[in-house]
């Protein structure tokens, strides 16, 4: 079964990479047709906004702009030319501001990266600790109470949670600025409100994993041989239950990406999420398309990475994939 492990492993990596490319292409295609093939005239909307509601533009102005943005070309031709431009790194020009999309993205990306990074740094250890604490004694009163915490967090609207945090820690206690703060103090509340909903899902899955592993036979054996429970729990149960957590961390990145739209709006922070929200409102298709493809790129890349890492962490998966792919 394991006669040619190097070759099949390489084939596995190649397959995953091809899948990655196909997914990105498909996301582009779906986004393009959703954004451009549907009714709604972005140019008219753009002129109306620019002239602040003073009656839009003349038909000649509309025609000139339509020609400039290539909106008169047939859809398939625009689809191909946009794809070609994207592949050469040209993300297009914003309908709304008339500036190149990369410029717009680069201006706000650092803020979002700091926020998303801070949220991940908070969410992953927090969910780990909460799950380990919850599942430490299954069936105990602590387990029964704590197991509801992720469910409760998942039921609460994320934007509402953010507003409550502001109410308590900013207006009530005055610890942190409520909006737009600079530096670390301004980052705390947004990062926490982004991290909490994400850790809800992470914790729920990890607790289920820990509870399941505890019912396995080897746990009973280890306990029967007299190992202290803490040792069994941390060294054996946790180690076995951690694998789905690795996959989920990939998905968590997606949750954080989407969550920035809400968080940045609530805290009035400049960032990719807020840029996306305002571009959706003004139907600024090039910006929305660029952010969607970028988000899919990050999301798919993280999933690809966890997929490739998992067999390295878990020998059982290694053998299984070799057997299946060889």
């Amino acid at each position, binding site marked *: 079964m394991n006669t040619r492990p190097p070759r099949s492993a390489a084939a596995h990596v190649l397959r995953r990479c091809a899948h990655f490319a196909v*997914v*990105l292409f*498909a*996301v582009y295609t*779906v*986004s393009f047709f*959703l*954004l*451009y*093939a*549907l*009714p*709604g005239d972005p140019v008219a909307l753009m002129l109306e906004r620019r002239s602040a509601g003073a009656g839009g533009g003349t038909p000649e102005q509309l025609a000139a702009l339509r020609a400039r943005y290539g909106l008169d070309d047939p859809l398939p031709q625009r689809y191909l030319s946009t794809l070609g431009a994207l592949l050469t790194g040209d993300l297009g020009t914003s309908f709304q501001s008339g500036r190149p999309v990369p410029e717009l993205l680069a201006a706000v990306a650092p803020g979002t990266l700091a926020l998303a990074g801070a949220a991940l740094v908070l969410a992953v250890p927090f969910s780990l600790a909460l799950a380990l604490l919850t599942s430490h004694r299954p*069936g105990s009163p602590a387990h029964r109470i704590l197991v509801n915490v992720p*469910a*409760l967090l*998942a*039921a*609460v*609207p*994320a*934007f*509402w949670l953010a*507003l*409550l945090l*502001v*109410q308590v820690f900013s*207006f009530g206690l005055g610890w942190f600025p*409520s909006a737009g703060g600079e530096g670390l103090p301004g980052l705390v509340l947004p990062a926490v409100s982004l991290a909490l909903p994400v850790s809800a*899902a*992470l914790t*729920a*899955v990890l607790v289920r994993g820990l509870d399941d592993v505890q*019912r396995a036979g080897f746990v009973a054996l280890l306990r029967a041989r007299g190992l202290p429970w803490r040792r069994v729990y941390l060294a054996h149960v946790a180690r076995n239950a951690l694998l789905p957590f690795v996959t*989920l961390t990939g*998905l*968590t990145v*997606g*949750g954080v*990406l*989407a*969550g920035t*739209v*809400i968080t940045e*709006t609530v805290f009035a922070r400049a960032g990719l999420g807020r840029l*996306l*929200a305002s*571009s*959706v*409102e003004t*139907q*600024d*298709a090039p910006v*929305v398309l660029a952010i*969607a493809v970028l*988000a*899919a790129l990050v*999301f*798919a890349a993280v999933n690809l990475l966890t997929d490739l890492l998992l067999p390295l962490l878990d020998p059982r998966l290694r053998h299984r994939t070799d057997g299946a792919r060889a």
Partner: protein
Amino acid sequence: MTATLPAPAHDRPARRARRGTRTGVPWLALAVLLAFALAVAWPGALAPQDPFAENIAQRLSPPSTAHLFGTDELGRDLFSRVVHGARASLLTALGALGFAIGLGLLIGLPAGYLGGATDRVLMAAVDVLLALPSLLISLIVVSGLGTGRANLALAVGLASVPALARVTRAEVLRISTQPFVEAAHGYGLSRPRILLRHVLPHSRGPILALAALELATMVLSVSALSFLGYGAQPPDPEWGTLIAAGRSYFATSWWLTALPGAVLAVVVLALHRAGRALGATEVRPV
């Protein structure tokens, strides 16, 4: 949860396992959901005050017996606005669910039943939707279609199609191998008839359980997108819009944001409970 039969003391692991897989009738959650159904069907019965009646003298007054949830910046009764807002919020979410189940069945039934190339193509299409976080899918659709409640329902529904299509397909695959389906083939019934009259009815349990959970997610997504300003427009009350409007005053008037959000959380918890009672175990990570 009370057991009807006294279990022997040494039977604890088995009892625990049972408790984990099957839950009793969630009376509290059902009562909550019924109350919200009443709010959708006949809001005047729960909140007799006019949600649009302005009373500037009473503006921004905190919760009291006269105004259960306090009043907003125009002196409108917030409790009435929340109750009347249930229709906008919940009907939009139900519309999204209807769309998602419809499309999910349309994809999942043929994929599971026909298999082969049909299955691969349909599931690959569904997988594309999974390559983006669901909120992003909704935002792209809203961006293409424009704002408004009907577009919002489509946008939110589309994000749930992958989950529903996958469960439908898995159920159809499971049921199709049962002897009674083979027997129906033997009788010479047509394939659409077998699929709709014999396979689908047996698949409805897991689909319904997932639908309850998805509805909870949809209520949250609809309110989040309305909060961002893509749904119902003021002065129409809708929960996300109410919370967004309350933001302007929330340094001094906590009830304007806190109470509508709490109501929203209660609906979502009740739907989660109902979903678990129907047998759902999955919690979607994103």
